[in-house]
C-alpha cells in the first residue's frame, strides 16, 4: 500500500475497528443483561423526576441556539481559512501581503461578532 493512502487507511481501520468493538459490546450486553425483566407498567415511560410525563416528548427551545450555531459556522469557516494561511504566511515570497489580506478577512468577520455583541445576541438571558 502506498504511503499516502496507507496513512489514511490506518485511520479508517481504527474507525472501523472502533465501531465493530462497540457493536460487539452491545451484542454482548444484550446477552449479559437480564433476559426476563420485570414488566412494570410505567417502566418505559420517559423520566420526569418521578412525575407522570405530561405533554409531548419535545420542549420548546430558544431560538438563540440557532444563532450560536450560525456564529459557529461563521467562525468554523474562518478558522478553516486561517489554517492554510498559518502554514505559509511567513514565506518570503508573500511579504507582508498575506498578513494584511488575512487581517482584512478577520476584521470583516470580527465585525459580525461585534454586531452580535452590540445587538446583545451574545448575552444569554
Amino acid at each position, binding site marked *: 500500500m502506498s504511503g499516502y493512502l496507507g496513512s489514511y487507511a490506518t485511520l*479508517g481501520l481504527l474507525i472501523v475497528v472502533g465501531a465493530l468493538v462497540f457493536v460487539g459490546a452491545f451484542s454482548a450486553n444484550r446477552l449479559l443483561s437480564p433476559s426476563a425483566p420485570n414488566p412494570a407498567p410505567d417502566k418505559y415511560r420517559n423520566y420526569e423526576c418521578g412525575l407522570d410525563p405530561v405533554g409531548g416528548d419535545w420542549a420548546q427551545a430558544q431560538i438563540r441556539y440557532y444563532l450560536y450555531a450560525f456564529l459557529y459556522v461563521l467562525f468554523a469557516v474562518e478558522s478553516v481559512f486561517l489554517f492554510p494561511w498559518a502554514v505559509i504566511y511567513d514565506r518570503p515570497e508573500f511579504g507582508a501581503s498575506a498578513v494584511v*489580506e488575512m487581517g482584512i478577512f478577520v476584521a470583516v468577520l470580527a465585525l*459580525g461578532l461585534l454586531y452580535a455583541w452590540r445587538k446583545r445576541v451574545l448575552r444569554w438571558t
Partner: protein
Amino acid sequence: MSHSILAAAAGQMGTGEKVFFWIFGPLALIGAIGMVWARNAVHSALFLVLTMLSLGVFYVLQAGPFIGMVQIIVYTGAIMMLFLFVLMLVGRDSSDALIETLRGQRTAAILIGLGFAGLVCTAIARAMGSVSAKGLDAANQANGGNVQGIAALLFTKYVFAFEVTSALLITAAVGAMILAHVERRRENRLSQVDLMKARFAPGNYPGPKPGPGVYATSDSVATPALLPDGTFADRSVSKILPTRELSGAESAPKGTER
C-alpha cells in the same frame, strides 16, 4: 463514470483506491437516496451527513486531504449541526407538509432539477470523453504539500474571492441575527415598580397560583387541584399543558373511604 476520472487522476488506479471507492461510492448514494426518502427530518439530515462524510473521503482519496478534512469540519461539523439545531427547534413530529407554500414551487423544483441533471450529465460526458485528468500530485509537489499549495493559490490568485467570502459570510450572519433575534431594548424593559403596579392592578390576583393536584393516584403537574366545592381549579395547571382529567380507575376510591 467518476470511476474512470479517479483512475485518470491517479495516473493508474491503485487497488486501495478501488476498494475505497467501491465502499464509499454506494454509501454516498445510499445517503443521498435516504435523505430524500426518509420521512423524519432528522433521519433525513443524518443521511445527508453520511453523504457528506463519504464526499470527504473521496477528496482525501483524490490527493486533496485538506479539502477532505474541511468538508468534514465545515459541512458535517458546522452546517449540518446548524440544520440539526433548527430541526430540534421545530420539533420531531412535524412531518413534512404536502401543501405548496410557495406558488409554482413544484414546477420550479422540477425544472431546476432537470437543469441540474443536464449539467451533471454533460460534465460526466465531457470527463469521460475528451478531457484527460492530470491529478493533484504535481500540484501538491510544487509547493511542498497540499495545504501549502492551496494556501499559495488562495492568497495570490484567488485573494479577491477569498475576501468576498468573508463579506458573504457576514451578510448571512447579520441576516440570521436580524431575523432570529429580538432585541429587548433597555427602555422597553419594565422596571420593578411597573411590575409591582401591574401585579396589584385591580382584577389581578397578586398571590401565588395554587399548585397542581397531589393525589394518591396522580401527582402530575397536569392534574388540576380541586377547589373546596369539588370543581377543578383552572389556575392550578399551567396554560401550556394539556389538562388531564383523572380517569375512572384513577379517581376511584382505593379502599380508604371507610
